[in-house]
């Protein structure tokens, strides 16, 4: 009996339940991939566009990976360990690009930097050039452009997790490394960076998965990736099976990412080194160094947020009366409600999965966690269809049974309601909350668990009393990420929403898709502004969550 309990604790069973529900969508895509239907498409794809898709996809991932790592980690390091003009502002302002959907950043920059845009027009006027053959200007609509813009909106994933990791590191560790002769730079590369690695890897992996299933930006920039190929095979050739097979190739990319992450962390313990730590004051940077730090932090904020916000604001002001009269408030309410629900549910499930993995660090629970995150890797529309198929089957079966036995119709209980939409957001973004919760827990020393258990706490009590306060920052980060991403989510929202439900993103899309930036601008600005609220609130809360450090009376372990 005891043995049975230890094998299948409620936590493990719960994880298995969550994983099996959440994996319904990816699995139903897998089933589609294996079901013969239509003509076989691989021969044609392999001999024509597939190599290009693979190369573009790989280069995109490489570029975005490097870009987000450098920007995210660099800025997190600067604002956490140094004092320079504007640091307090940058602590949260560096998160602002998170509120800007990639496709909106894309279309504002093409407006600005296209041949017809104000930047090139000014250059031509100044230099007296008259045609595109007179000069060279970097092409915005290119792989390089896509990498740059995606890095600008995705680096906050790395920044958030890196900053949380740097803050949770004991300053003493760094000071010891300095007394042992490390320069600040050496301390960064030899001590802080390795300690923060789990968080950095999680952050970069999240950014890469976002990049992997982006459809709008790559399409706008004429970069042909596996994801765009998938939509072609499915929508133009009407070949669901071929499309599902490409989705499986995408999934292997993700599995490779996950394995790489595992290998990077294998057999290393990353628990916070010092039990006592004090708040990081930051070394002052003056003069040139301070100016350089200021510019380094300002650039991503200005390029990733300031510029697009200014373009949107200008276009909104042009149509101010329409923007005020319009039903934007209703769309914003729908977006807020759905995203809040999704964030709350994803946070609860992610924490449960991560904690179950900590209680029982067997390969089974670990892989249950991984499996639950697979939805993040599926392009939104594919995920939506992966949900519609089983939900529709369930709904129709239930409806048939109820009609036969009770003469009642239940209709489309799951697939026809907002349930499907919230479910899709949770499946899509559970990897975010799970990843953040897991990497947060990983930094809490297991001896704390043992101590709490030996004092008579049950696992749930340990979680509530010890872990939650310690990892509050990571959890808020997780909630923030899920919320903002749900706000921006487009493809699944388009396909799964019931009648007369518009989110800000679906509303913007109808105009953005036909290059009517003026009509799209008020809604796009509303997404950015609505996304800002939690960014600011939560970044303040993250800072406060750490304020118990250095005040021993509040340290939970006492």
């Amino acid at each position, binding site marked *: 009996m005891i043995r049975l309990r230890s094998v299948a604790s409620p936590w493990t069973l719960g994880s298995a339940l969550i994983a099996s529900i959440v994996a319904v969508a990816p699995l139903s895509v897998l089933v589609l991939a294996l079901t013969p239907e239509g003509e076989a498409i691989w021969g*044609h794809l392999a001999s*024509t*566009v597939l190599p290009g898709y693979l190369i573009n996809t790989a280069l995109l991932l490489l570029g975005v990976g490097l870009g987000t790592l450098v920007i995210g980690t660099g800025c997190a390091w600067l604002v956490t360990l140094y004092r320079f003009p504007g640091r307090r502002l940058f602590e949260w302002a560096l998160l602002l690009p998170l509120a800007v959907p990639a496709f909106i950043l894309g279309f504002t920059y093409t407006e600005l930097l296209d*041949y*017809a845009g104000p930047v090139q027009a000014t250059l031509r006027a100044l230099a007296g050039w*008259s*045609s*595109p053959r007179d000069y060279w200007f970097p*092409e915005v*609509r290119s792989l390089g452009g896509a990498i740059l813009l995606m890095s600008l909106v995705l680096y906050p994933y790395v920044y958030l997790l890196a900053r949380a990791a740097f803050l949770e590191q004991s300053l003493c560790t760094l000071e010891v490394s300095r007394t042992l002769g490390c320069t600040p730079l050496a301390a960064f590369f030899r001590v802080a960076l390795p300690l923060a690695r789990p968080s950095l890897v999680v952050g970069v992996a999240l950014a890469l998965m976002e990049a992997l299933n982006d459809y709008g930006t790559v399409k*706008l*920039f*004429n970069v*042909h990736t596996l994801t765009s190929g998938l939509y*072609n095979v499915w*929508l*133009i*050739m*009407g*070949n*669901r099976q071929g499309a599902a097979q490409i989705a499986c190739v995408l999934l292997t990319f993700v599995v490779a990412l996950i394995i790489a992450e595992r290998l990077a962390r294998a057999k290393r313990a990353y628990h916070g080194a010092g039990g006592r730590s004090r708040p990081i004051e930051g070394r002052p940077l003056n003069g040139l160094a301070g100016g350089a730090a200021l510019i380094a932090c300002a650039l991503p904020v200005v390029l990733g947020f300031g510029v697009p916000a200014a373009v949107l604001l200008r276009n909104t002001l042009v149509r101010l009366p329409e923007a005020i009269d319009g039903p934007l408030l209703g769309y914003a*309410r*729908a977006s807020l*409600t*759905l995203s*809040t*629900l999704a964030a*709350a549910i994803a946070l609860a499930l992610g924490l449960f999965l991560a904690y179950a993995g900590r209680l029982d660090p067997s390969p089974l629970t670990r892989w249950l966690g991984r499996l639950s995150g697979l939805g993040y890797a599926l392009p939104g*529309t594919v995920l939506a*269809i992966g949900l*519609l*198929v089983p939900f*529709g*089957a369930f*709904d*129709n079966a239930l*409806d048939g049974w109820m009609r036969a036995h009770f003469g009642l119709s239940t*209709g*489309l209980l799951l697939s026809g*309601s*907002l349930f499907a939409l*919230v479910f899709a957001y949770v499946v899509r973004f559970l990897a975010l909350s799970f990843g953040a919760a897991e990497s947060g827990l990983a930094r809490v020393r297991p001896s704390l668990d043992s101590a709490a258990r030996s004092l008579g706490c049950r696992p749930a009590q340990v979680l*509530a*009393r010890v872990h*939650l306060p310690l990892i509050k920052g990571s959890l808020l980060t997780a909630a923030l990420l899920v919320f903002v991403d749900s706000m921006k989510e487009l*493809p699944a929202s*388009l*396909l799964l*929403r*019931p*009648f*007369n*439900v518009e989110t800000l993103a*679906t509303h913007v899309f*109808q*105009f953005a*898709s*036909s290059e009517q930036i*003026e*009509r799209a601008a008020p809604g796009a600005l509303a997404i950015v502004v609505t996304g800002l609220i939690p960014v600011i609130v939560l970044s303040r809360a993250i800072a406060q969550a750490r304020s118990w450090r250095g005040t021993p009376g509040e340290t939970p372990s006492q």
Partner: protein
Amino acid sequence: MSFARPRLFPVLISLLAGSTSLAGPAMAEGEVNIYSYRQPFLIQPMLDRFTAETGVRTNVVFTDQGLVERLKAEGANSPADVVLTVDISRLNELVTAKVVRPVSSPVIEANIPAATRDPQGRWFGLTTRARAIFAAKDRVPAGAVTSYADLADPRWKGRVCSRPGDHVYNIGLISAMIAHDGVDKTKAWLEGVKANLAQKPGGSDRSQVKAIKEGLCDLALVNTYYLGAMLADPDQKAWAESATMLFPDLSGHGTHVNVSGMAMTASAPNRDNALKLMEFLSGDEAQRLYAEANSEFPVKPDVARSPLVASWGTFTADPIALTEVASRAGEALKLVNEVDFNEGPGS
């Protein structure tokens, strides 16, 4: 105790309560439910007029992809009554997936000519749109371009612009060409056009016209109604005025024409209202609105084109059966892939 449980439940419940009210009544009486591939701002004027005349409320879900899959998954319980699409391929896809039902209505049959509807009543065209060539007014002499074939002529090297080859509008044109000229000849044409491209294909039809205005290219493939839309937009008027719209010939068959259309779903819970809506959309009033507001060609023969559209002149439309065009979409995409059209010139 200091670790009070967060008061999450009341919040969640109130959120849930709020969210259900968002769903609204979709199946109440006096309604008709529409799945639309067409952008809402383009169809709202017709739907508003329909509601004003009949009192039947319209509910719309708009998306650019996946509605066929949604209908299939929802099956007999789908709340959708009518589907609106932007081209024949989507209509054909609905028929193939068996999610639409035949409609027999003397009103619709009298309004919509046989050429632009399914003989079995499973889909109906509502408007037609031609795939035109826009030519730079000051750089392309009159009469220099008369057919799609001209776009592949080496004399236009570096001067042709297009949205990606795999966009449905280009797939429609390439499909029609395959149907008339065969795969090999179409492939040679596509290679010729690719060699003439001024830049990597991208953007929408509007961006191509903008590129003409900016001198990036001299010729571009653009659907007719964009001319009306751009003339009505203060920011885009100058783009439209920089180009002449030509109706090119496709191997002696006339200009390639596609349709926007409608179909009734197999499950349609509000069948009477759906029929009312379909009849309305095929009638004088809605057809006139399509012509005026969207600058499209009405399918109903006795409804006049808008004065603006009429000023564009007349042309011969390729009489090929649209289902034939739709059935070639897969081959067309394969050609686009084989010549690597989307990678642009010089690849």
